[in-house]
């Protein structure tokens, strides 16, 4: 079966989550992705320091993100390592990187030079704050881009301080990166022309708060933190259920859903109560409603409560922990998780390919590579080096399969 991007070669020298996610989305769509690390600096996403033997191969974060990629090592600080990378770039279609500009320039990997080597190369750099501007050199990590994209200011309990996203904001940059690469590849398929893409994490990230931005733009209004309330739905909240740390989200969008909720929780009379007749009324009086709803939910298992409300036509969702997500009947019915075997960790379920395609469905074809797992495939089979040349590279520590600090 032909996969959509199977003729595309992506070289991913990025580290962390954002760049590797962009490359991985293309891998999930069938591209051949080559993740290039080094034994001097394995992807820091594997864990920076050994937490026990082979910890860099047993990291859930890395293994959850790095699938559908070949893995090789090249010490890019060494000119011989860079020379091999350049040879590889000549026959590649895409390069993804997120090093600091100083490092990229020091290594001679600026786009102006690479495009002479390969005029149809698409190269994407992913600086936290952009390659220009007063914030250009500020250090950036996933949580700082959460804050600096304006997201943290909008998240928190009523009257409380800002709270960070569980996902940081890295995957937002990563998903925009995949979109950018596909746009560039489309243009290239029409014209043969590659290009350079600059993706600033905070510029991508700020798109997601556009609704709040437009309220300031139009009305000069700054949103307060609302906890689990909503400004246009009421009641809307997160209610305690029976058991330890079990919760249910309920969101009532209309008077019909409100009446249905009242019946479902055994208080049909509230449906006729003028205090709660319209959304505006319910928004004003939600403090009265929350204990009434919780009086019902706290006697029920969160899934039971969800099923009862959904059966009545009310939006409700059990707040699931990772353990519960893994066992979720809907995700499992849809085969969202794929069971994959991998050295060092054995066989485990992993979230599958999000994008479902009717004729060319994606799968986890390869688990996250072990460090340098495909050195031979890349350097011998693809670039034509001999056994002797490979041994020499290993001696010089330009390639390898174990971190130097191990």
């Amino acid at each position, binding site marked *: 079966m032909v996969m959509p991007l199977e003729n595309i070669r992506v070289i991913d020298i990025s580290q962390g989550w954002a760049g590797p996610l962009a490359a991985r989305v293309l891998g999930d769509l069938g591209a051949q992705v080559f993740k290039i690390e080094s034994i001097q600096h394995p992807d820091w996403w594997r864990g920076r320091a050994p937490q026990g033997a082979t910890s860099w191969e047993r990291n*859930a974060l890395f293994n*959850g993100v790095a699938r559908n990629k070949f893995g090789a090592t090249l010490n890019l600080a060494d000119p011989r390592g860079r020379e091999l990378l350049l040879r590889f770039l000549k026959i590649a279609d895409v390069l993804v990187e997120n090093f600091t500009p100083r490092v990229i320039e020091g290594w001679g990997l600026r786009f102006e030079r690479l495009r002479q080597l390969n005029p149809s190369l698409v190269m994407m750099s992913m600086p936290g704050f952009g390659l220009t*501007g007063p914030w250009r050199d*500020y250090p950036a990590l996933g949580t*700082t881009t959460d*804050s600096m994209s*304006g997201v943290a200011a909008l*998240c928190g*309990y009523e009257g409380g*301080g*800002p709270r*960070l996203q*569980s996902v*940081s904001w890295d995957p937002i940059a990563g*998903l925009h990166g995949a*979109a*950018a690469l*596909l*746009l*560039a590849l489309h*243009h290239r*398929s*029409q014209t043969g022309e590659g290009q350079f*893409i600059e993706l600033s994490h905070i*510029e*991508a990230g700020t798109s997601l708060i*556009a609704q*709040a*931005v*437009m*309220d300031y*733009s*139009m*009305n000069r209004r*700054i949103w307060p933190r609302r906890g*689990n309330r909503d*400004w246009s739905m009421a009641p*809307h909240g997160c209610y305690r259920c029976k058991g330890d740390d079990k919760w249910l*989200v309920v*969101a009532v969008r209309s008077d019909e859903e409100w009446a249905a909720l009242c019946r479902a929780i055994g208080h049909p009379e509230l449906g006729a109560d003028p205090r709660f007749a319209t959304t505006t009324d319910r928004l004003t009086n939600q403090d009265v409603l929350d204990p009434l709803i919780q009086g019902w939910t706290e006697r029920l298992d969160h899934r039971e409560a969800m099923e009862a409300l959904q059966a009545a036509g009310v*939006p409700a*969702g059990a707040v*699931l*922990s*990772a*353990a*519960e*997500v893994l066992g979720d009947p*809907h*995700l499992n019915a849809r085969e*969202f*998780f794929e069971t994959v075997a991998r050295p060092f*960790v054995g066989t485990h*379920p992993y*979230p599958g390919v*999000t*994008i479902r*395609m*009717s004729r*060319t469905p994606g799968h986890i074809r390869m688990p996250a590579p072990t460090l340098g797992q495909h050195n031979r495939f890349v350097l011998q089979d693809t670039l034509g080096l001999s056994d002797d040349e490979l041994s020499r590279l290993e001696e010089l520590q330009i390639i390898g399969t174990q971190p130097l600090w191990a």
Partner: protein
Amino acid sequence: MARGAVGDLLVLDLSTRVAGAYCTKLLADYGARVIKIEPPGAGESTRRLRPFLADQPEGETSGFFLYLNTNKESVTLDLETASGHGLFRQLASRADLVVETVGPGYVTSLGLGPTELEPVNPRLVITSISDFGSNGPYADYKATDAVTFALGGWMYPMGDPDKPPLQPGGPYGEFVAGLFAMSGSLAAIALARLCGQGQEVEVSVHEAVASVLPFDTVLFSYTGEVIKRPGHRYRGRGPGAAVMPCKDGFVQYQNGGDKWRGMLQMIGRADLADDPRLSTPQELLEHADELEGILGAWFKDRSKHEIFQEALKHRLIFSWVPSVKELMEADQHQLRGYWVELEHQRTGALRYPGPPFRMGQTPWAARKPAPLLGEHNQVVYRDLLGLTDQDLVALRERGVI
């Protein structure tokens, strides 16, 4: 350059939710011709999303709609009529992509599904975005942003341990689903061009949310550990990453391990460098409140910018927590031209977020603001499909457009 990265694409946009709108906005902003197909009369539902200009609810001045629909055209069409079908089929015969958000099977239920459209356009890609997809126990569930965050696992590890789990604060699941849908659509189009056959692309918001936190389930499978709510800190990093109040707002840092010594040095407490509470991650976690208390006292007397500049000098990873207002006034965004001003018939000039990424050869462009409802009926039905003005009058009289 004038055509944008995907300037050759024709997209029919039937979407009625943020996810679909963002998917097609990304295509439109980078050059595609995107034609929104909306019900006559009220138009599609995202026109009714708050905020409104001066809080006056009105179908043309929803700020979020304005942002999500830059560069698109709008036609009205009643898809439940035979004439409506005919017009849609004509448009679909010329299109590369149809995006809809009722759910898989919707266009088929209208008699406009892949089987019907394949003879007129075998390369057509049809992308569907729904809450839960078309099968499984939740397939008919009603959802809002909070519901999919809750079921997808994004919400459980957010907020404070002694309070309910906390919603993320915006419709981010919709954006994430839209991003996946856009990537899937372009990949399907690429394949359709190579092999002559289109296909259906499907994204569920629930699965998009579950995908964005890909490793919590993996961590549980590996170790049995479940990530819990970290309060003002960041999950899994103990006290190494947190948001802390300061004199004029909040700062945020991500300085694990050894960098704690760096932070204590910055605040003039190098004397604590060998303190046993810093010796191991476990010690650090156990004494997190006290140690944060020491930092916090120093932060309270200083502004976020003072703290940030000091942190830079000490090579520590800090940021602050800006409001939307601060971001719109920030030099960084002004100098890079990130905020873009667009003129719209009903709102006048407004500033919008600009390019989410910069493409060297095929840049983002705000060519036109969001369309008025049916603004392009003539341009599309007459100029593109060849109908006459009388045809349009008749169709309007019958409520088809």
